[in-house]
């Protein structure tokens, strides 16, 4: 409290001090018969010199930052498209830094050089077509070069991936990433968000996952049956808001279940194969050096952005649609650590679109391996089929789902009766 009071007093005294100084300054101006609009030669020249001085200081600061931090902030590009990006970026930087120096120098130098001098009148120079043509046409030509090079590179970067490119899906949600490798057939299986269950977080589409989604929506802990029995239970006391919430939840689930039954009717088992051999991977994304990857991006809740700063790659992930991006990593993590002289360095996949409070923590470490290492790692991974049925069996062992939900129902009944 005392601290705040002292701060306040200091501020008030400061304002009064400035006001007094300004007052004194105004009185002396008055004595000299000079208004605020008359800029003295001394002030004018001083500010002219400061303009020039500021320019030098600004350039010095720029060079200091370049020398200390520079473009190397994230190391050299570690992918094929990244190398081209860096080349083009360097070229563009040379152009714009030249323009930056040229125009700023003219601006500040003229502000210093042509400060008012007694007896020197300004030159009446309203226009000059030749000059204006020059600074319309020259920038246009430079821009033409920039546009052509840029678009060529853009077309390469966004074109279709090669047929043999490895397909990997990156699934984003608040606040983590999950990868799904396409498995032996190099084909990512289909999905539908309605199939999301604890055992099928990526909502992959097979006959079995449809059945289990239907089962959990009907008989799960918060399934339709439980909700209905709670809502129809005359003895169960509920706050009106809770009841209303439960009713909306129920009507939503009733709509969903119809869609799930439709899906079941239309489902063709042939596409299941592509799903079962997929490999789901959390925490770390392993990539093989010098292999092209085509990433398919999905989002579960809000927009995220898959940003690989070291590979110079980025693409938003959008709920309701699949976006794609391709690149070929060409430096292994091991090599990069040596080049960066940093044994703890890792590539990373970050989220780069505001997605909620923990946005800044949403990342996945990326490791680029030699082909042999990559293959042996891949061989150690379980396919979706294996992990799915293993988890289902584990869940079935202690207590089956329907039994669970009746237990819950019984509980609430007994609570109501007490």
């Amino acid at each position: 409290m005392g601290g705040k009071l002292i701060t306040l007093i200091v501020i008030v005294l400061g304002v009064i001090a400035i006001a007094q100084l300004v007052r004194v300054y105004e009185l002396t101006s008055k004595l000299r018969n000079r208004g605020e609009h008359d800029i003295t030669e001394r002030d004018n020249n001083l500010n002219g010199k400061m303009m020039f001085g500021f320019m030098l200081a600004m350039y010095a600061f720029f060079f200091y930052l370049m020398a200390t931090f520079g473009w190397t902030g994230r190391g050299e590009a570690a992918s094929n498209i990244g190398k081209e990006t860096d080349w083009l970026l360097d070229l563009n930087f040379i152009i714009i830094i030249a323009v930056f120096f040229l125009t700023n120098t003219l601006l500040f130098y003229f502000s210093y050089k042509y400060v008012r001098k007694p007896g020197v009148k300004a030159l009446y120079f309203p226009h000059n077509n030749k000059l204006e043509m020059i600074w319309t046409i020259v920038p246009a030509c430079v821009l033409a070069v920039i546009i052509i090079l840029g678009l060529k590179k853009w077309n390469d970067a966004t074109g279709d991936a090669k047929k043999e490119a490895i397909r990997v899906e990156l699934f984003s949600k608040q606040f983590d990433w999950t990868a799904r490798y396409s498995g032996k057939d190099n084909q990512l299986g289909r999905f539908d968000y309605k199939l999301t269950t604890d055992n099928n977080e990526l909502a992959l589409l097979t006959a079995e996952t449809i059945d289990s989604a239907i089962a959990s929506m009907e008989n799960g802990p918060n399934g339709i049956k439980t909700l209905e029995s709670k809502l129809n239970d005359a003895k169960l006391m509920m706050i009106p808001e809770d009841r209303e919430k439960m009713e909306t939840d129920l009507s939503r689930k009733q709509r969903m279940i119809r869609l799930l039954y439709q899906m079941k009717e239309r489902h063709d088992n042939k596409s299941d194969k592509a799903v079962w051999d997929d490999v789901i991977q959390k925490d770390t994304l392993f990539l093989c050096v010098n292999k092209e990857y085509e990433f398919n991006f999905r989002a579960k809740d809000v927009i995220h952005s898959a940003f690989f700063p070291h590979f110079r790659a980025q693409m938003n992930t959008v709920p309701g649609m699949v976006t794609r991006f391709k690149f070929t990593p060409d430096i292994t993590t091991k090599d990069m650590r040596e080049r960066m002289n940093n044994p703890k360095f890792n590539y990373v996949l970050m989220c780069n679109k505001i997605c909620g409070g923990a946005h800044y923590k949403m990342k996945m470490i990326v490791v680029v391996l030699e082909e042999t290492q990559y293959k042996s790692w891949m061989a150690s991974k379980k396919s979706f089929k294996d992990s799915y049925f293993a988890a289902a069996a584990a869940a079935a062992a202690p207590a089956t789902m329907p039994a669970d939900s009746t237990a819950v129902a019984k509980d609430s009944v007994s609570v109501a009766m007490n």
Partner: protein
Amino acid sequence: MAAVAHDTHGHHDAHGHHDHGHHEESFVSKYIFSEDHKMIGKQFLVTAVFMGIVAMLLSILFRIQLAWPGESSNFLSFFLGETWAPGGVLKEDMYLGLVTIHGTIMVFFLLTGGLSGTFSNILIPLQLGARDMASGFLNMLSYWFFCLSSIIMFVSLFVETGPAMAGWTVYPPLSALPQSISGNGLGMTLWLFSMAIFIAGSLIGSLNYIVTVLNLRTTGMTMTRMPLTIWAFFVTAILGVLSFPVLLSAALLLIMDRLAGTSFYLSDIIVGGEMLTNHGGSPILFQHLFWFLGHPEVYIVLLPALGLSSEIIATNARKPIFGYRAMIGSILAIGFLSFIVWGHHMFITGMNPFLGSVFVFTTLLIAIPSAVKVFNYITTLWKGSLVLTPAMLFAIGLVSTFITGGVTGIILADSALDIAIHDTYFVVAHFHIVMGMSAVFGMFGGVYHWFPKMYGRMMNTRLGYAHFWITIVGAYGVFFPMHFVGLAGAPRRYYDYSVYNEFDTNSYDMIMDLNVIVTVFAIIAALGQSLFLFNFFYSIYRGPKAPQNPWKSNTLEWTTPVEHVHGNWPGEIPTVYRWPYDYSKPGAEEDYIPQNVPLAEGEEEH
């Protein structure tokens, strides 16, 4: 007809002024519900200054967190209390809230409402030789809509669940789903309603500016004799009228998605464990609608600043603005192009890459009229006789930041390069310099230059100098290093860059060092603004009386008396005989010839 009607009205009021105690001069009608454009302009200015202080303070709060993450700060706990800064450490959600409201206020309330609202109102009638705006009543409404929306936005900071937190661009689904972040409840609703009201006010104002410019020019004031300020305000108003309704539609659809259960922007979403039934909407649609306003908005902010600086530079260089017609042409070209470049904000949203290439082309075209403007400013200084008033310093500073921020735009407009730096601090640095700093410099320049016209008194020059030097050093000190943070790959809107420590200690050290530099400069620059605030409010009441034409300027506002009269000119409206840039014309006695001076015998118009 309107012009005639206004003439009589004006005479009537001028008459009333001499009588004293005329009923229209009551306190309420003079200072609060005033229909006088000069008073409305001042109302806009003071409101915007208040909002600007708030937004600047918010930026200092989150800059402290960025430079010293996780360290307890008395400053934070003083302003945010235990709810949002427990133990003096900012909460994650509130960090995003501060960032969001800082951006919203700065872009819309300070630089759109404040800049264009203030100076369009004060200068359009005065520089055109009109008694007032075409509709004084609508003009008053436009201010009160602006004021109401400012109040709502300000109040949203004090909502228990926090203000809007989805970034100033409020992309759905994040902004549409109350479950996704705490500020998405009442805070986001207030944000949307505030913006809807703001847009209504801005539309009314813009329509008024357009009609006034087209209909109420005095005799002889042809379009090609208008000062560049008026050209800039005119094109700005047209941009506003064409683009703001699109933002309103985007906001209305978002309000419906939030409150009425529609699915314009939502499809296949599971959030907070709830599976939503919305299907078929597209979040990308919102981005298209938002940026269809969002990009012209950049020029709505920038053009008035460029217009003001054209006038300030010509006056204080004692030289005609170089290439007057080219300047008008580039304003029109920038205005037109600004409508067909919005997609450059969306290169990596999953938009069709071919569409991206079209936007690369149109975006880079804007560099041509911008380059023309810069070279014309520089040539105006060449062989001038510069009087470095504080306003002139700010105008030159504007040209510098316009260049420095503009060139990095070339990199960002190139979709192939944008992939690597999209949404990093490089973007933040770019738009703060080119749009934020340039517009703020233009606004400060405008205030220093036209203060005598607004308040009949002079601001203190020395304090003005100190203010300028602190501000420009602060501006470059903050935003130069920020480019390097971005090149290091640091994403924007991150609460804490310590996460870099987990995978790249080199980048971590670099980002942390730079963030401290940035924050220190930001605090210096913010403290420097207190000089301006003091100077501004002190001079309103105690500043020395202003002469009629302090800067020896040519435009018509300086032919009005220092004491304001309703209707601007006590007698006849002046007639215009020449363009506004006859400075240092050979053969003339003085180094300026006001627009209302007839051509001398044998004198040629420029």
